[in-house]
């Protein structure tokens, strides 16, 4: 391999950034802050894991933010208004979001449409549906919510590893295993390399597409439940723009937007970088929170430029020998 793999560069940026922050605010380097960072970004980590699969396969999923919003409203209404037991509500919404993702994947494959358009439609659909359910914030008071919110593993140094942070870590690890160790994962990379070639080599491209978008929506549903735990409410305007945050995390994590390369671990590091920037701004106190977006934007530019550089470097010897026939 030429130079550093992108994931390593992400890791270096994270460590260096964290060191810089800790130099200015020594308190940042505590398990308390790290625990909060994981809790605050739990839903983002979950949804970005799904996005990693989609982007490596050469697609994109713009609907995830809306699916999160819909999930919070659905869960809140089901528990508070319709009197459904929380667990049943969770299972129902997960089945619903998985079906939603499967439908998008099927449309993408059967009608050979760009994922961008199909999931854009999905984004409007899910967001619209959540407004249809309720336009106002619905607080959730079910006992299971306070139990889960109170639950936390004590870390040395006084930090709390909350339930939703644990869920996120489990999903990140599970996602990494699924991507790197299974046939499904290998096929995701194959699709991102070339759909035509993958299908010639025997990969069931249609089934894979359906499964990949199903996975992404399912994880968005889980992220929605986690988000409802985080805010103890359901609100149709929640998680607006999260699809873009998660795409940013995936790209910063070294996954190629054109597909074929990337890792879940990189995405997790990307989420942490975004969380770290936010934490820094909170500590500073004088900076507007919008600086998070500016810093993320700068980082995104840097990573995309870096990837293009790496891609160009990797392609050079190949193109030289091409183009022979008279």
């Amino acid at each position: 391999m030429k130079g550093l793999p992108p994931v390593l560069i992400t890791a270096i940026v994270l460590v260096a950034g964290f060191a810089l922050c800790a130099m200015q605010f020594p308190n940042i380097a505590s398990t308390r802050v790290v625990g909060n960072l994981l809790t605050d970004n739990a839903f983002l980590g979950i949804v970005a894991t799904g996005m990693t699969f989609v982007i490596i396969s050469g697609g994109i999923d713009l609907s995830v933010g809306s699916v999160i919003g819909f999930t919070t409203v659905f869960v809140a209404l089901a528990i508070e208004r319709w009197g459904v037991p929380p667990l049943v509500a969770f299972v129902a919404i997960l089945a619903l979001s998985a079906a939603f993702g499967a439908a998008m994947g099927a449309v993408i494959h059967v009608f050979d449409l760009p994922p961008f358009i199909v999931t854009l439609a999905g984004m409007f659909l899910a967001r619209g549906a959540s407004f249809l359910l309720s336009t106002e914030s619905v607080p959730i008071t079910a006992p299971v919510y306070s139990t889960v919110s109170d639950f936390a593993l004590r870390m040395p140094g006084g930090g709390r590893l909350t339930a939703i942070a644990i869920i996120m870590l489990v999903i990140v690890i599970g996602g990494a295993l699924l991507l790197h160790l299974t046939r499904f994962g290998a096929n995701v990379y194959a699709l991102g390399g070339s759909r035509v070639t993958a299908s010639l080599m025997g990969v069931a491209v249609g089934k894979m597409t359906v499964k990949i978008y199903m996975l992404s929506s399912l994880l968005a549903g889980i992220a929605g439940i986690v988000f409802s735990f985080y805010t103890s409410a359901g609100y149709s305007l929640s998680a607006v723009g999260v699809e873009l945050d998660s795409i940013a995390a995936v790209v910063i994590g070294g996954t190629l937007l054109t597909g074929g390369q990337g890792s879940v671990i990189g995405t997790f590091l990307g989420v942490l970088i975004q969380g770290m920037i936010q934490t820094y701004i909170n500590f500073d106190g004088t900076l507007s929170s919008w600086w998070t977006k500016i810093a993320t934007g700068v980082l995104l530019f840097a990573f995309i430029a870096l990837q293009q550089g790496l891609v160009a470097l990797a392609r050079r010897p190949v193109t030289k020998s091409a183009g022979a026939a008279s």
Partner: protein
Amino acid sequence: MENSLDPALPLLEVRGISKSFGAVRALQEVDFTLRAGEIHALLGENGAGKSTLIKVVTGVFARDAGIVRISGEEIAPRSAKAALGAGIATVYQEVNLLPNLSVAQNLFLDRQPMRFGIVREGEMRRRAKALLADFDLDIDVAAPLGNYSVAIQHVTAIARAVDLSARVLILDEPTASLDRHEVEILFGIMRKLARRGIGIVFVSHFLDQVYEISDRITVLRNGRLVGERETASLPRLELIRMMLGRELAETTSARAATREHSAREVCASFENYGKAGYVAPFSLELRHGEVVGLAGLLGSGRTETARLVFGAERADRGQARVEGAAVRLQSPRDGVRHGFGYCPEERKTDGIVAELSVRENIVLALQAKRGLYLPLSRREQDEIARRYVKMLDIRPPDPERPVGLLSGGNQQKVLLARWLATSPRLLVLDEPTRGIDVGAHAEIIRLIRELCDDGLSLLVISSELDEIVTYSDRVVVLRDRAHIEELAGEAIDVGNILAAIAADSAAVALEAHT
């Protein structure tokens, strides 16, 4: 498996295959027979029908007529996957594997060794290693395939195909981007596989390689079977005649009286012009009112020469002159500025804009030459379009018709009109008569003659030697990306061109490859 050992039955038998695309008959009653354990070269120029035949056999195209049998059993695959199931695997020039996956994953994609739902990475690598060792390849199978040379990627593709129990292996131009040493390795593997009883179809335009490796040769021309011969008893001249020429007697009459042109002024000249790894340096003079033909086999450097002359490719040595003045041709724009025009071979992809009307296509180059700030008025456009539709007899004579709806011959005329509208001094035509029906064919040739009578200088590439002989004042013969001979006057005939192409000196070629 049982009957594949029966020596009486051919491994792959193709009988009376026909295939048409619209009005174009790509294959007409073609037969092809492959025995077990033989390496069989399938030869022909561009458009001869090689690719179509392969795609019909491998189920990519549906056939119109004919049968395909494998070990005596009739098959009708509907996809490449189905063909693979029947034991026919194809390895294309552009390797159809995934460069972003590891070598091992490429070999075992979708059939990896598993345990508890987890890919057994170690086991998979061991097997990949063992499989490649069979092909004398010892590489790190965990590294991405894209890190390796095209040669290794080819071997990987072949290994995958063979491991998928292929009995017929079709190699489509496998050596086009390999160097000499890599070709040797590939040939070693091909011989080894043939000894195991696998039948190999070898498509290549490198005749030296064909003679080196193949047992038998089948030649196609214009979608028809020309013949099937034993390689050992087929002289090279005879082979080239099968690929390019019709019967010699038929052609000699066609040549018109040579016109005397040496007195004419030089329009453009190229001295020691060339590009490393593209075309060996050549010197070429193009005079006003003269047609220079470029003859040679596919891959001999004809199109490359044309692209250098036009400026579509940058030369790295030599000097170009236009009307005696030294010029630099860095881009097609420079070419156009100096009054050059270029009608490429791939009309559909490189030439016409199918959705635009005849008028819009015709004024395209003229408008580009004038620049965007001097738009042609609609009246001027109409005037130009009408003039050329009439002059070149474009049918139907409707300037507003989208070009995509015209026949191939008329599309070619629109392309010609586009460049003529810029009043060029030199026009480069790459295979102007390819894919055009016979009537339009003669008309294009007549046009070529008329144009040069008007003082235009023409550089024409064609695989049809009869045609080149008919209209050329001089013929440059190319082989292995080098200009090897220039014929003029009485010396221009099909026999001489064939002899020049077939001449057995590889020394000239070396320069071009380094």
